[in-house]
């Protein structure tokens, strides 16, 4: 909700600065941003009463002297004889109507009204709808204006099953389905109650006679309708959060006043339909309870003063104002006190948790992860949504992607996708694992199994011992046996013929159901976490390039110096390097060291020239060592 600073401070006699007002609004729990003297409020869903200038001003009355009375029409208003029946009073316990006719439409609006549309960039519609929108902004009560000339005969409100087309006043065609709260005129649906009126009875720029509906709808009767029909509706937003059931006369008198400020009124009549007497809620005064909830020693005088300034009537009980539908318990009262005192002003009390620690039987997986990590495996986490379906799949009713409407029964497909993703990024040694729940429909019992999936392909490693060794079944079995003892498992080779890849390395996969196995205690004990939060360096989406160099060390006495120099190499675009080969030529007493350098830029795809320029600088300190050469360079 957006509102103008200057409109809000009109209610506040002290005229605080926008910064001060902002601080107070935050203290009261009304999160917002400010831009060009406009508050963009993000109100919590329990505070429907604050979705207006008046609502926020009522809350701010705790800090400032305010004038919460808006200018209203004070003359006697004739009673309207309206052929109306409320057939669903539980959905709409109170509804009022104002019939209004003017002589001529105004040429222009007063500044306060014009500025609302201009500065907040609200679109104008027609005279009466514009006032309706302004009143909703000012007072928080939505109203709907029917063109009186377009209404004939009997009007009713009811909640009923209806399946019919409906065209809104914004000319949107929707298909009503299921139960809806609707207004009918001679059995024709003229409004989707609490959401949006219909086109057939909508006001136009020529409308001079209107029937204004002002209602309280039960929030549960309105909730979800605007989303169901994809209608953006400020009225629905407010009705869903609750409006003030006792505000109708004030709101409609305010409506007349604004009309009167712009046009000569020919005719004005009002009526109200109450299904039952509506009295304000009452709570006992229980200061001890409130202090116990907050851990404070607030006095009764402060307690009463805060509540009275928030509009509560304090007698022998706390009478809750009709606009505060969120206040139902002493905890709610405690929150009111805390908001006004300020959460940050409530002193902390040292907490001593008195409960007895119990043995923690929950299986801890940190040990398994640690073992796999030490074997060079990386943990991944995947979303559980999949296209794969079988007889035990659990299906989402409302998936984000209709192609992935099932929950995983295995981790395999996700891990294959992860592997291919990294292969496309030139990774030649890929070792991944995931520990996650999988989901099964077992004769309508929805079950979860915790599984470990391990996938590996490519080189065993990058060092000179492993560089030439490819991952095979024996490797994975060795890894598995070092993590788990005495488990019979089947390692699966994933065929590549159905995968979108040209790489030939064998892919090996294994998956075990962790719920089925008694894990080796040594691997499930919680290990101390020594957390180090190093700042992340954003990764490049550009391709990397490898360059291999074989350094020939003719004078083996320089060997240590060469290795030390290699381990310190730095260069532009050099992302990584490792020694993948080591060879001692006994006959010539020469040593060869193979180094792979990986180049990548964060800003572009590297050209050969980019890499050559970087290489020449990287090689310089190594080749300056006497007796060191790179054959071929």
């Amino acid at each position: 909700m957006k509102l103008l600073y200057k409109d809000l401070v009109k209610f506040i006699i002290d005229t605080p600065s926008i910064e001060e007002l902002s601080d107070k609004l935050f203290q009261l729990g009304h999160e917002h941003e400010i831009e060009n003297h406009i508050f963009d409020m993000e109100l919590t869903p329990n505070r429907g009463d604050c979705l207006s200038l008046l609502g926020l001003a009522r809350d701010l009355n705790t800090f400032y002297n305010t004038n919460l009375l808006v200018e209203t029409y004070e003359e006697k208003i004739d009673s309207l004889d309206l052929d109306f029946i409320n057939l669903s009073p539980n959905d709409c316990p109170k509804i009022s109507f104002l019939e209004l006719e003017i002589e001529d439409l105004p040429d222009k609006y007063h500044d306060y009204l014009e500025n609302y549309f201009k500065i907040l960039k609200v679109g104008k519609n027609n005279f009466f709808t514009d006032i309706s929108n302004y009143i909703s902004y000012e007072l928080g009560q939505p109203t709907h204006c029917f063109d009186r000339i377009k209404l004939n005969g009997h009007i009713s409100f009811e909640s009923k099953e209806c399946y019919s087309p409906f065209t809104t006043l914004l000319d949107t065609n929707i298909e009503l389905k299921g139960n809806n709260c609707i207004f009918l005129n001679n059995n024709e649906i003229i409004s989707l109650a609490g959401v949006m009126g219909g086109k057939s009875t909508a006001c136009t720029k020529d409308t001079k006679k209107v029937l204004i509906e002002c209602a309280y709808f039960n929030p549960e009767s309105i909730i979800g309708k605007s989303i169901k029909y994809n209608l953006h509706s400020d009225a629905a937003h407010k009705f869903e959060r609750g409006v003030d059931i006792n505000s109708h006369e004030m709101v409609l008198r305010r409506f007349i006043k604004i009309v009167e400020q712009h046009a000569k009124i020919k005719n004005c009549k009002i009526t109200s339909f109450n299904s039952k007497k509506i009295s304000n809620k009452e709570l006992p005064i229980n200061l001890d309870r409130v202090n116990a909830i907050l851990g404070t020693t607030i006095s009764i005088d402060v307690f009463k003063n805060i509540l009275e300034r928030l509009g509560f009537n304090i007698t022998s009980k706390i009478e809750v104002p009709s606009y505060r539908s969120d206040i139902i318990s002493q905890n709610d009262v405690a929150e009111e006190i805390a908001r006004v005192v300020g959460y940050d002003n409530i002193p902390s009390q040292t907490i001593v948790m008195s409960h007895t620690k119990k043995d923690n039987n929950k299986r801890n997986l940190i040990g398994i992860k640690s073992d796999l990590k030490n074997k060079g495996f990386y943990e991944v986490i995947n979303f559980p949504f999949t296209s794969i379906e079988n007889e035990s799949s659990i299906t989402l009713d409302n998936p984000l992607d209709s192609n992935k409407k099932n929950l995983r029964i295995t981790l395999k497909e996700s891990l294959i996708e992860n592997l291919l993703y990294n292969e496309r990024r030139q990774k030649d040694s890929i070792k991944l694992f995931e520990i996650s729940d999988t989901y099964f429909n077992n004769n309508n019992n929805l079950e979860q199994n915790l599984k470990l999936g391990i996938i590996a392909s490519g080189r065993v490693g990058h060092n000179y011992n492993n560089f030439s060794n490819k991952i095979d079944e024996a490797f994975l079995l060795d890894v598995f046996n070092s993590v788990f003892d005495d488990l019979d498992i089947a390692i699966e080779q994933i065929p590549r013929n159905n995968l979108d890849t040209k790489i030939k390395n064998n892919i090996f996969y294994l998956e075990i159901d962790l719920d089925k196995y008694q894990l080796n205690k040594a691997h499930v004990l919680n290990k101390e976490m020594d957390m180090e939060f190093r700042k992340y360096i954003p990764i490049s989406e550009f391709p990397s390039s490898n360059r291999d160099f074989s350094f020939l060390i003719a004078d083996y006495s320089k060997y240590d110096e060469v290795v030390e120099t290699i381990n310190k190499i730095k260069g532009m675009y050099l992302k990584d390097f490792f020694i993948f080969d080591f060879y001692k030529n006994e006959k010539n007493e020469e040593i060869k060291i193979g180094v792979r350098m990986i180049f990548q830029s964060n800003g572009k795809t590297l050209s050969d020239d980019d890499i050559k320029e970087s290489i020449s600088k990287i090689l310089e300190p190594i080749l300056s060592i006497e007796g060191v050469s790179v054959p071929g360079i």
Partner: protein
Amino acid sequence: MSSFNNINPPVLSDELGASHPINQVKDFLMNLLKDFGFNEVDGPEIESEEFNFDMLNIKKSHPARQMHDTFYVQNKSNLLRTHTSPVQIRSMLHSSPPLAYASAGKVYRKDDDATHLPMFHQVEGIYVDSEVNFAQLKDLIHKIIYAIFDEEVQIRFRPSYFPFTEPSAEVDILSENGKWLEILGCGIVNPIVLDNCNIDSNKYSGLAFGLGVERIAMLKYDIKDIRDFYKSNLDFLNQFK
């Protein structure tokens, strides 16, 4: 001078892998809470409306229960939990105060954009005893935030709304660029929730809090895009050894 025969291959360092950074942060937070005295509890990701909403005082009319916010499964018979709070409910139903539970895990919301994912992780804690109050909650939250960040960090409590706590608060920390960043939600357990769990709310009160693991991880590691966590990119994962 050493002989040629004494030349040894270059020393190899282990080629280590890494736990996922989200799990590292989750484990860090859980270890922290266990040190405070919380017992770790776990629960299902596929939940009933009763445990995910009703028992937590989230009424039928609450927007969170709509199809556009929650993933429902098997003809709305169940749902993917939208928070870890039902774990606390299940635990409270099987115990009596004093109790202190912490839970962590995946939660799901029907959301997918640059700043929201359909799956993310939460860590939650609940403590119920006689005379638990808001001032104590503040003390605990300060201790948690100081342990995650440092004791110099500036903290702000502001009123908020959660159906399962009353009073409710959101807690912000002041970032280096002078902006307040939301870190966690907390509050005094709504007596309705205690009564739902057969705990006498006239005798006992509780405090509860919840943190978004991705949020904490992004702040601690200075990661700008939440989607990076779930690309499974080895260049990304390699930085969290």
